[in-house]
């Protein structure tokens, strides 16, 4: 499977006082496939944002990398991120790789007008600043932002406008790879669709090659993506194409998560939708074995003792669950 980024046995922990670690990402080996919209899905505390930042090598204390490797596949060559000189890595960011962080509306430099910031960023990456500004104005229009917003400071725009401005800024240099962390969570429904569809269009038109959307919103990402990575308790528990995951979820967590969302038109009197019983693990003290086993209705004795291996059913289709060990 052709991929853009891959990790090998990546462990990213947060250091707490008294020598306690939050094991937010705990042994993750994934390949982010090239091309299209990819969903990295998990609920709060699953480690999805940490994994995203790890893949971008944005690892700063209190987050530490305990083990593992991250590789970028740039123009057919696999590069170990840690071997890229910091200056080159800095250049890769923004031009080859771009990031829309969570709460992005607060991520703008307050001392610069939006337009100035865009020109500076273009200049830094050796692109024509006026050309970048032209692209940005055009994209502002697509998102219903007036061109005059370019002459504004971030604080002069509303939250929803800032959010859209960040989306445009992060995509203006047409990065090959974009990671967007909950890019629409604070917007109204019309804006949500406008922004997501704008991003999806950039991917479909080829301006951006690969986009990973980090989200807790399983229904939304099922609609918009072609490939999914499902996270639970610091592990990637299942990967596969959207259609495979939708029609044949392999991990019990994925299956129960899909079943926990009422489809439109289903009424409680006719079909009672069940949530997943229990609570997500405390990643300071994760349970032994499979991290889902305390909530899993299919658990076996091995599940509470030994961490399940990752089983590759076929290229790109993986599951981390003992149920599939013998079936392979």
């Amino acid at each position, binding site marked *: 499977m052709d991929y853009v980024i891959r990790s090998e046995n990546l462990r990213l922990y947060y250091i707490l006082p008294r020598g306690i670690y939050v094991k937010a990402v705990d042994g993750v080996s994934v390949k982010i496939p090239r091309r299209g919209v990819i969903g990295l899905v998990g609920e709060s505390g699953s480690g999805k944002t940490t994994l995203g930042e790890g893949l971008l090598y944005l690892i700063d204390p209190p987050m530490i990398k305990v083990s593992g490797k991250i590789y970028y596949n740039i123009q057919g060559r696999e590069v170990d991120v840690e071997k890229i000189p910091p200056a080159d890595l800095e250049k890769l960011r923004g031009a080859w790789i771009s990031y829309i962080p969570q709460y992005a509306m607060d991520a703008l430099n307050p001392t610069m007008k939006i337009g100035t910031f865009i020109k500076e960023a273009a200049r830094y990456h050796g692109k024509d600043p006026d050309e970048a500004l032209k692209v940005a104005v055009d994209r502002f229009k697509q998102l*219903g932002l007036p061109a005059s917003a370019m002459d504004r400071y971030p604080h002069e725009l509303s939250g929803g406008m800032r959010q859209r401005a960040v989306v445009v800024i992060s995509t203006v240099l047409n990065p090959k790879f974009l990671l967007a962390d909950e890019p629409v969570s604070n917007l109204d429904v019309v804006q949500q669709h406008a922004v997501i569809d704008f991003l999806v269009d950039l991917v479909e038109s080829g301006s951006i090659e690969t986009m990973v959307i980090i989200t807790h919103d399983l229904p939304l990402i099922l609609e918009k993506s072609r490939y999914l990575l499902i996270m639970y308790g610091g592990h990637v528990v299942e990967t596969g194409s959207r259609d495979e995951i939708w029609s044949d979820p392999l991990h019990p967590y994925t299956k129960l998560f899909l079943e926990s969302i009422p489809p439109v038109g289903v009424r409680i009197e006719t079909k009672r939708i069940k949530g997943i019983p229990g609570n997500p693990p405390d990643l300071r003290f994760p349970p032994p074995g499979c991290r889902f086993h305390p909530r899993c209705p299919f658990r076996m004795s091995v599940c509470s003792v030994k961490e399940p291996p990752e089983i590759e059913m076929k290229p790109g289709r993986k599951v981390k669950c003992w149920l599939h060990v013998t079936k392979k």
Partner: protein
Amino acid sequence: MPLKPLLVVKDLVKDYSIGIVGRKYVRALDKVTLDINEKEFIALVGESGSGKTTLARIVLRLTPPTSGRVLYKFKESDDYVNVWSMDDEQIRRYRAEVQGIFQDPYTSFNPFYKVDRALKVAVKKFLGEGVDEDKVIREVLEAVRLNPDEVLGRYPHQLSGGQLQRISIARALIPRPRLLIADEYISMVDMSTRADIINLSRDLVDKFDMSIVMITHEMNMALYATDRIIVLFKGVVVEQGDTREILKEPLHPYTQLLIEALPSIEKRERKILSKTIEIQRLGLHEVTTGCPFAPRCPYAFDRCKSKKPTLTNYRGRHMVACWLYV
């Protein structure tokens, strides 16, 4: 004779002034009229800026209205009392019979105390001394399907959002309320456990003879489990009716938009949504004095922009405020 509603909201208006010296006002609620019946599970659906939280706060006596009335019929009484002109004794009873639950369960509990304390305080406040405190607490925790031994003795940060939100509900149940106003109480709970909170709410309505008003922006949960939906847009009730009617035939373009916007795995046409995005993209929306949705509405005609439609009966209890249906 039809049953008399439990609570009536009549022509409720709330203006907030903005700025310190200027006399500029923002109208958060614009003549909202609705009623809440006994044993009813209602969804008040709206997005941020719709006035839904303001409405909850006025009903819960936390924010006074600018004008209009909230009328409440006490247990074993036939008369209505204006919630905002109650005497002390009535306020005390009202606070027991009408309970509120709020969005962020982590800020609803004092982080320095075990959750037990919040429950004990509520028992003392509403049931007085001399009741078997532990028994009441265990009963309400079991009513919200929590294992008392798993949550008692814990601090808020040791519990999940879902557990804490259930404890909020348990606490609200202590005075045996007749009405629960739940403001976005599922939005901070993990998606995979939201259905359980909704199922629980449904069961409380059915088994404990109480009413719940779920204030939410999540149309899919409202459609799944409630009896009635009231749609609020920019301080105006644009549509209300039995949930199954609304599911079958949403009338107001805004309601249609909210249902269209729900994610779906099958490709579906989103007529209103795509037109609304287009209107916004082209910057066509202008401020009008008519229907608040007119600036974004793909069906808007001249009258919509100049005159506000009023909420009128369409069929049975199904009401809509839209010129398309006049």
